[in-house]
């Protein structure tokens, strides 16, 4: 039984559907990211869950009760905004206490719970400050404490880290996950940053043009993308195509790539062209030839710390390969050299492009 469920949710702006019959079930305590490029409908969906936008169709339920007809102030959700949205005229203490005061919580309990919440976000001692006296990271922590202190049913995070600098962003995201697990609160995290989503989510819903393309745990999203959009949006890919030489049972076939033959598990028709994606780190190179490999020329190489990126040319195509420096010492390969390239057929991600 899911805790938060969206069922065929629709949102229309000026006759264009920006969210198209979107359905999603989220378990209690789960952290789900909405990931997608800008304009994909992720923030719109979040705003419908929070109640800032009306749904134009479908329904939203929390804990088995429909909430999509309730105004935002009756939904019991905690939201953290991209630009913090702290009350500038209130101290940190009053900001965090605001939701509790509205709930008529007794004074002594308010101050106890506010202090606990501030301690949780490591801001104890800052009660009397005003938002403008805090750094961006501190403001976002206050915002998080303010959302959590009312013990909401769902925590909604709208690109909470995008206004912070890179280093702080990484620290904060670890902190958010830690607090989320500690509190055990059902959380939706909206972001356009795939690295962020991969790092913190229990599941990721990749969104594109108002639809959810795929919902899965981060590893499955990365390793087994179900659509071309997901393959290309998450991580980097090389786009390659091959010709089907023979088909076998069990949806296997023999394929021809760059003068090399491989048995690949993909349903196909004989003599057809099949498109694949392969991630740069799944491409391997060797100095010696083998059965599986084909010859490529190193056009450029870029040292990236733990790994090296090789731009390989084969026929009229370019392939990007990221090779760990512990596997191949980059000094052994010079630009212009020939190397032998191969991959494990299981790492090929089939594309629907030609189908």
């Amino acid at each position, binding site marked *: 039984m899911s805790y938060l469920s969206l069922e065929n949710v629709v949102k229309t702006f000026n006759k264009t559907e920006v969210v198209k019959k979107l359905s999603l079930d989220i378990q209690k305590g789960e952290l789900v990211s909405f990931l997608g490029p800008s304009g994909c409908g992720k923030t719109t969906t979040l705003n419908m869950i929070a109640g800032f936008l009306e749904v134009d169709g479908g329904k939203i339920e929390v804990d088995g009760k429909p909430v999509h007809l309730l105004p935002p102030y009756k939904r019991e959700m905690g939201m953290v905004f991209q630009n913090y949205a702290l009350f*500038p005229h209130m101290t940190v203490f009053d900001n965090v206490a605001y939701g509790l005061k509205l709930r008529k919580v007794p004074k002594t309990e308010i101050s106890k719970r506010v202090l606990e919440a501030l301690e949780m976000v490591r801001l104890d001692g800052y009660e009397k400050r005003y938002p403008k006296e805090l750094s961006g990271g501190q403001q976002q922590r206050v915002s998080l404490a303010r959302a959590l202190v009312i013990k909401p049913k769902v925590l909604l995070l709208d690109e909470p880290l995008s206004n912070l600098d890179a280093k702080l962003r990484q620290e904060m995201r670890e902190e958010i996950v830690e607090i989320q697990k500690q509190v055990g609160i059902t959380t939706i995290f909206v972001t356009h940053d795939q690295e962020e989503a991969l790092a913190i989510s229990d599941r990721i819903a990749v969104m594109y043009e108002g639809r959810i393309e795929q919902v899965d745990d981060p590893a499955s999203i990365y390793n087994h993308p179900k659509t071309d959009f997901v393959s290309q949006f998450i991580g980097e890919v090389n786009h390659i195509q091959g010709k089907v030489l023979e088909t076998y049972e069990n949806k296997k076939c023999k394929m021809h790539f760059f003068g090399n033959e491989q048995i690949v598990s993909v349903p196909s028709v004989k003599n057809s062209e099949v498109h694949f994606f392969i991630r740069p780190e799944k491409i391997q190179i060797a100095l010696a030839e083998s059965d599986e490999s084909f010859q490529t020329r190193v056009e450029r190489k870029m040292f990236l710390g733990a790994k090296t990126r090789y731009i390989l040319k084969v026929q009229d195509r370019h392939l990007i390969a990221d090779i760990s420096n512990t596997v191949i010492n980059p000094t052994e390969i010079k630009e212009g050299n020939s190397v032998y390239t191969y991959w494990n057929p299981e790492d090929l991600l089939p594309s629907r492009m030609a189908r």
Partner: protein
Amino acid sequence: MSRKLPKYFFNFVCLLVYIFLLAPIVVVLLSSLTTTEYIVFPPEGLTLRWYTELIEHPEFMQSFTLSIIVALGTAIIATAIGTLASLAFVRRQFKGKTAIVQLVGSPLLIPSVVFGVALLQFYSWIGLAASPLALILGHIILTVPFVMRLVVASLVGFDRSIEQAALNLGAGPMKVFFQITLPIIKSGVIAGAIFAFITSFDDLTVALFIVSTDVVTLPVRIYTYMQYQYDPIITSVSSIMILFTVVLMLIIERVLGVGKVFSSKN
């Protein structure tokens, strides 16, 4: 040295302008202290006699009280309704918006003497006699445009997600307005109220048409007094008005900073 010369000349010109601006204030304040029976500057001798004499002119005290009542009423009502209308202007889309914006801004363009005449005619037709209410209604028209300029300016840069945050925490729309929105746009609202107060308090033109023999605002009282008499009483009353306004201006400066008020005004 020769490069400095234009600069000295420039500063000297500015100084002359500042003297021109300040001279009337200084002259009125100082000449109200004269011991003579007639207005003279520089004052001859120093006395507060013309201020104490004022107490024996109950009509001035009455007018002063009336002006305060009218200015307060105007400031409160104009600020309240102007703030509400500003909210609609900035945040809502509705039919005929441009027309309404122009209507509400037009008192700045209509000569107030024409408005005064029109109002007098209208009041006599509907039978509204000279009263604080009649004055307040006229002054509301004069001051709402100012209030709205200031409040709209403070609403335009308003981050709506702050209100969403409050809604999200469980505050209903009314609570959001009074506990979040209003405190944040406070400076624009207060500035609007003070401008409305001063405009109403200083208004002679419109009041001139609306007053009757027993309902007379201070500027009208001074104006009519001057038609017949010309003694230092005028200077002491004017001084009180000036000091009163200066105090209000210093409040604006202290509470809000003159730069803020002025930048949003422009």
